[in-house]
């Protein structure tokens, strides 16, 4: 299991490739389900120039680690990887990566989606957007 909070840009596809190579025994996994969330240059009808992502150091990591460990146990995953950006983020930057690895496809697909929903609804992160007209806090995440 790996959970990481990043203050700098990352390439989610390189991360997944490296994680599979370094942490998963070749030939043992049949399924990799990956979700990547990326910053859009629009939200709720407005152009967004940049964003600041705040978190609760200590609580956020602990929360994501428990979530990931629970998903591995519940779905009998081979392993799982979560990376989340914080700090100043620009449009087209990747914000979050959730990857689940298992022998069969069902478990990885369900776990990946469940982890994303848990992360969106409960992980302590907050977004503040910069628009042409000023700044605004994102009020609430949409349902998945």
């Amino acid at each position, binding site marked *: 299991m790996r959970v990481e909070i990043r203050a700098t840009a990352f390439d989610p596809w390189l991360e997944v490739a490296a994680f599979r190579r370094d942490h998963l025994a070749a030939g043992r996994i049949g399924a990799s389900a990956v979700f990547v*969330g990326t910053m859009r240059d629009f939200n709720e009808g407005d152009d967004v120039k940049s964003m600041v992502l705040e*978190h609760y150091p200590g609580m956020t990591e602990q929360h994501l680690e428990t979530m990931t460990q629970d998903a591995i146990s519940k779905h009998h995953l081979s392993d799982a990887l979560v990376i989340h950006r914080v700090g100043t983020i620009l449009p087209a930057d990747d914000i*979050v990566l959730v990857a689940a690895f298992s022998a069969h496809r069902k478990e990885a697909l369900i776990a990946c989606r469940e982890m994303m929903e848990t*992360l*969106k609804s409960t992980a*302590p992160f*907050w977004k503040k957007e910069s628009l042409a007209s000023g700044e605004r*806090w994102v*009020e609430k995440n949409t349902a998945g």
Partner: protein
Amino acid sequence: MSIQVRFFASLRERVGHTRLSIESADIATARDVWQAVSASPLDEEMLVAINKAYASLDKAVSDGDEVAFFPPVTGG
């Protein structure tokens, strides 16, 4: 009783503090902590964590606890 209080995101801006330290004999729950730092009631949708774990407003706090208040999360 000594409590470390933290605020995040829009609530941090509204309260005007990132951290506060309070000392009081009259505090039993997280709700008491909020009342010690603010005159207005805590909005219903606001969230509470005690020692970095989610808790209800009515959960008991102990000397030395860290109590955090923050708005609905918007990560991912």
